[in-house]
C-alpha cells in the first residue's frame, strides 16, 4: 500500500522524526497559484492530522521515558510506584544461589518501621522528635512489625518455595513504603497543626488518605504474593486478603480494645465509626 507523502513544507512547523531526521522545507509549497487556494487551505487540516498521529504513536514512548526516571530510585520507592515490575525483578534476583539470608536481612526494614512509629508518636504528642519518647515508643510499638512478620509466616509458609523466610520478610517490607509515608505525613501534619483543627484532620483528610493508601497497598501486597511467592492472581488476592484481616484485627485489638473478646472488638469498631461520622 502506498502511503501518502508526509507534509514537510510548512516552514519550521514539522518536528524531526524519532530517528532525528530533520524535515526538509520546500519553498515552492509557499507559493499558491491563483485558483488553487482551496488546496493551500487544506494544509492546516493535514498538519493537525499529522500532529495527532505523531502524538498517538509517541505516547507510549513518552510514558516509557517518564517511567525510566524511577530506574534510579531506591528499591522501596520503585515498589511504591511500580510494584509489579519491581517485585518481578526482585523475584528474578532471589534465586537460592543469590540469597544471603541473615537476621539483618529480615530485621532491617521492620526496625526502620519501628523507628518511624516512634518518631511519629513523638511528633503527634509533643510536636518534636525527642529521643526520650522515640527510644521507648519504638520498642513497644514494635508489636506492629512483629505482628506483620508473624502473619506473613502464617500466610506464606507453605508457599515460600526456595526463598528463605528472611528474604521473604525483607521483600514484603519493601512494599511498605505507602504506609510509612502515610505515617510520616500524619506525624508532620499533626506536629504543625493547631489543636482546633485536629479533629477535622482526623475525620476528613486523614480518612481520605487512609482509604487511598489501603487501596494502593492492597495492590502492592497482591503483587508481592503473586511475583515473590510465585502464585496465581486469584491465590495472591486470597493471601493478601487473609493477611490483612489477621493483621488489622490483631493490631486493632491491641491498640483499641480493652476486652479480649470478639464482641469487644465489634463494639470498639462501631463506636469508632460512629464518632467519625458525627
Amino acid at each position, binding site marked *: 500500500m502506498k502511503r501518502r507523502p508526509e507534509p514537510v513544507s510548512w516552514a519550521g512547523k514539522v518536528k524531526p522524526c524519532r530517528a532525528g531526521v530533520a524535515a526538509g522545507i520546500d519553498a515552492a509549497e509557499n507559493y499558491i497559484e491563483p485558483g488553487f487556494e482551496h488546496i493551500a487551505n487544506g494544509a492546516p487540516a493535514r498538519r493537525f492530522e499529522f500532529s495527532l498521529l505523531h502524538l498517538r504513536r509517541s505516547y507510549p514512548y513518552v510514558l516509557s521515558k517518564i517511567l525510566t526516571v524511577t530506574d534510579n530510585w531506591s528499591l522501596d520507592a520503585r515498589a511504591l510506584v511500580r510494584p509489579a515490575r519491581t517485585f518481578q525483578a526482585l523475584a528474578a534476583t532471589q534465586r537460592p544461589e543469590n540469597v544471603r539470608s541473615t537476621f539483618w536481612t529480615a530485621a532491617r526494614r521492620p526496625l526502620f518501621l519501628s523507628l518511624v512509629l516512634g518518631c511519629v508518636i513523638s511528633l503527634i504528642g509533643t510536636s518534636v522528635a*525527642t529521643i526520650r519518647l*522515640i527510644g521507648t515508643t519504638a520498642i513497644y510499638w514494635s508489636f506492629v512489625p512483629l505482628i506483620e512478620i508473624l502473619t506473613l509466616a502464617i500466610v506464606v509458609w507453605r508457599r515460600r518455595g526456595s526463598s528463605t523466610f528472611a528474604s521473604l520478610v525483607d521483600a514484603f517490607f519493601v512494599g511498605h513504603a505507602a504506609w510509612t509515608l502515610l505515617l510520616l505525613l500524619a506525624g508532620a501534619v499533626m506536629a504543625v497543626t493547631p489543636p*482546633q483543627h485536629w479533629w477535622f484532620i482526623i475525620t476528613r483528610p486523614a480518612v481520605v488518605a487512609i482509604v487511598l493508601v489501603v487501596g494502593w497497598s492492597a495492590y502492592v501486597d497482591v503483587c508481592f504474593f503473586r511475583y515473590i511467592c510465585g502464585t496465581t492472581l486469584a491465590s495472591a488476592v486470597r493471601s493478601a486478603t487473609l493477611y490483612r484481616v489477621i493483621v488489622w484485627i490483631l493490631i486493632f485489638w491491641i*491498640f483499641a480494645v480493652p476486652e479480649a473478646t470478639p464482641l469487644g472488638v465489634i463494639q470498639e469498631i462501631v463506636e469508632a465509626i460512629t464518632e467519625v461520622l458525627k
Partner: protein
Amino acid sequence: MNGLVRAIVVAALALASIAAGTVVDVPTPSKASVLGGYYVLACDFHVHSFPSTWSTLSPIDTVLEARHRGLDVIAMTPHESIWAGKLGAWFTRRIAGPIVIVGEEITAPRYHLIGVGISKTIQYGVPLADAIASVQAQGGVAIIAHPYEMDWLADDAPELRALDGAEIARPEALVSDEAAARLRAFFARGSFTAIGSSDFHGLGPIGFPARGSSPANLLHKV
C-alpha cells in the same frame, strides 16, 4: 547520587532532626502555689495510656510525660480496666513523680463516666445510676466525661444529683464556642463540680489545671 550516599544523607537529616527536637524538649517545672490557703495543683483527671484505649504512650511513658509537663496529679482512666492506673501509681512512687490516681472510664452507648479513685473494674454498659453508685461505693468520685449528648437525661433525673463532677473544660471547648456552650449548658443542669480534663490519648499536650490540695483530700475536694 548512589544509594549509599542517599542513605547517609537521609540518616544524617533524621539524626539532626531528632537531636534538635531533643534539645528543644525542655521540661516544664511544676509550679506549686498557694491560693486562699489551698495548694494549687495542676491536675488532669482523664488520661489514657497504651494499650487498649486508643492511646500511644505506655503507662510509664504517660507518667514521665506528665512529670515532663509539670503536672502534679493525673488520674489514669483506661476503658473498662484499671491495671494501667495501678502500674502508673507503682512507677510514680519509685521516681517521686506526679501523684497517680487509679481510675477507669466506664463506657456505655449513652454515656462515658470517669471513676476516679476506684479499686475494682466496673463493667461496660451498666446503667448510669449503677455506675455512679459503684464508683462511690468504692470511695471514688464519678465525673461524667465529655457530656455533649446527655439530652436523654431528664433535668430531675437522680443521676444528675448523684454525679460528683462533669468535664466542663476540655481541649475542644477552648477552640469551639459551640462545644463550650454545650458544656456550660450541661453544667447548669446540676450541682456538681466543674472539672477540666485533657482526655489525653497521646495527641497533643497532657494536662489541664485544676484546684486541689493534698493527695488524700483531692477526691474529697471534688
